[in-house]
């Protein structure tokens, strides 16, 4: 019997292993029952043998509170064990944990595609039902990129321009493409996204509109959007910035789009530099 099989009623714990520990037990078995008990306690804090992924993985029956899950087979269930038993899992590869509202409750109610070295803490709710209390990606998505040099004539007459942030400061999941300015999410969740751009060189003409859009697969966010009326002494530089918390699914993309209107042609220039033209994001 492992710790999971112990009872919270002291009188019910009449044996440990094959040793009768009930009232009147033989004195010669006392040391054995104590050693069995020590072994059971140790086992709960022990690293169990690796378990191969499969539709049902017997983490409850495993001897140990921590174990590696090998393989890439989708997991849809764990075995039945007493309520409150906890298991720390470390995934060795990419597999899908399939959310079920009763039997395998995952954070945010969505499936998780694991990556090597991701960690998860599950607690049994009895009857083969498990709840994930904590899921910690080994390397949660976070990126920061900026536009290193100015680009002339990108917008001005209403043309929408996708900003290419060509210099990457960091990118934990290698999801940012510095040729296209597009970030691809590798995990489902809420992402904090922030950006800033700076336009200049309007040729002495007052622009009539300027907008900055965070364009995700699921929806668009206008984080800066201004309409300008004529003013004597025209505006010759404008900085637009903002941020959102966006729901993104694994595989979704996000990019930054801008436009300026009011000029005779696309003659406005986009500035460059880490302090003025940047795009950052992180999985919350």
């Amino acid at each position, binding site marked *: 019997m492992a710790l999971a099989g112990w009872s919270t009623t002291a009188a019910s714990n009449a044996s440990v292993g094959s040793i009768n520990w009930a009232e009147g037990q033989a004195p010669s078995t006392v040391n054995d029952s104590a050693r069995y008990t020590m072994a059971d306690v140790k086992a709960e804090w022990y690293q169990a043998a690796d378990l191969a992924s499969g539709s049902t993985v017997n983490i409850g029956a495993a001897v140990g509170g921590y174990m590696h899950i090998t393989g890439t087979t989708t997991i849809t269930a764990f075995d039945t064990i007493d309520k409150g038993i906890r298991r720390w899992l470390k995934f060795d590869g990419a597999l899908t944990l399939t959310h079920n509202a009763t039997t395998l409750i995952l954070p945010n109610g969505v499936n998780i595609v694991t990556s090597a070295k991701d960690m998860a803490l599950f607690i049994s709710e009895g009857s083969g039902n498990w709840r994930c209390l904590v899921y910690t990606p080994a390397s949660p998505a976070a990126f920061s990129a900026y536009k290193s040099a100015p680009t002339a004539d990108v917008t001005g007459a209403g043309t929408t321009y996708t900003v290419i942030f060509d210099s990457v400061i960091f990118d934990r999941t290698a999801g940012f493409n510095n040729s296209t300015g597009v970030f691809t999410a590798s995990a*489902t969740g809420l992402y904090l996204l922030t950006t800033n751009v700076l336009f200049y060189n309007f040729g002495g003409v007052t622009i*009539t509109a300027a907008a900055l859009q965070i364009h995700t697969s699921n929806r668009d966010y206008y984080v800066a959007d201004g309409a300008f009326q004529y003013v004597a002494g025209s505006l010759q530089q404008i900085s637009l910035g903002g941020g959102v918390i966006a729901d993104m699914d694994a*595989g979704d993309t996000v990019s930054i789009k801008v436009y300026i209107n009011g000029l005779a042609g696309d003659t406005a220039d986009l500035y460059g530099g880490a302090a003025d033209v940047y795009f950052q994001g992180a999985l919350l």
Partner: protein
Amino acid sequence: MSPLQRTILADAVIDPDEWYDNAVTVLGKERADAALAEKVTRRQPEYNAAVKQPGYQPRAERQAVIDQARADAVKENASQAEAEKKKQQIAVLDAILSDADSLAKLKSAIK
């Protein structure tokens, strides 16, 4: 990607094929397929409800309507800005003409 997956994905994203191709490129086919299945499963209830509504449009068509409305608003604002610009220029010219008229009257008074 099955036809049903494409249809449901098209309710969420503008270009489902572009979405999938990019996912395969960045995540690899195995993870892209898992991500596709997850996204479709997650979006299916929303799609099932939406498609029953009269005049249902997939995301690309809905987005085109939104984009057109924005473009119209930008165009309208530009038109108003141009009108305001002319109004202010005329006001400046009127002020100059008024000043010229005043100067002419002043000249007559001096004579």
